[in-house]
């Protein structure tokens, strides 16, 4: 337990070290989620449009 507290304390540099890693996590996480959302949205929209077109011209 003491070790864990020491780990998070980072020898007094906790604010700087964890801010750096937190910031990197947010930015890198966004770069995975943003394309995922965009791809899902496009797939749904295009599938819907194709289904509509197929219904109109059998």
């Amino acid at each position, binding site marked *: 337990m003491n070790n864990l507290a020491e*780990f998070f304390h*980072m020898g007094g*540099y906790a604010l700087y*070290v964890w801010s750096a890693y937190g910031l*990197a996590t947010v930015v890198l996480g966004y770069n995975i989620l943003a394309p995922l959302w965009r791809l899902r949205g496009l797939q749904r929209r295009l599938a819907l449009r194709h289904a509509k077109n197929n219904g109109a011209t059998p």
Partner: protein
Amino acid sequence: MWYWLHRFSSPAYFYRFAGKAIPWLAAITGLLLLAGLYGGLVLAPADYQQGDSYRIIFIHVPSAWMSLFIYMVMATAGGIGLIWHIKLAEVIAASSAPIGASFTFIALATGSLWGKPMWGTWWVWDARLTSELILLFLYFGVIALQSAGEDKRTASRASAILALVGVINIPIIHFSVEWWNTLHQGATVSKMDAPSIHTSMLVPLLIMAVACKFYYATSLLMRARAELLDREHNSHWIRDALKNHE
């Protein structure tokens, strides 16, 4: 080889191949990140001069390397798209720009968070920091040109020209710590015969660097798939792919 390249650069084949590769690349990225972070944050000892603050290096330096590497990939892909009009190359260039900008931003921000306790300042206008900031603006310029105008292919051509002109900044960033007397410390690893860093720190740093490469591959393929779907939404192969839920 040419046959393979030709096949690979076909959007339909790339879309399917990327869809299969992404889960594997993501898994490798995750494992490498875990190993690198554990080695860097837990196993590696504190630095005798900088204490634990130096641990920012494990994200700062790989990000800075990636900011240069991705720029070169983007400029090369842009150039290929410009000369041979290969659609996939334009897509790779367009998809690389936001990832490269993200790594550049991380390199600058984590550098700032490292500089404050070590140098006593968040920012100095020295050669290394300034040229890296110019790199961020070059990425912004490329992204802005990508989304300017209706025609995506004209936008790709314009942003490729900007990216190619901006390549001049890359050696400036790399050699800035040697050419000018700067506050930024010199290279840590590139002196291959005798890197000025201990093995217990060097190994996690290199693992993190490889992890960032795999991360880039993962994010790039995801972005490229979405971009292809957007640009080619009327093609037959898209209809087939969507029908098969790929």
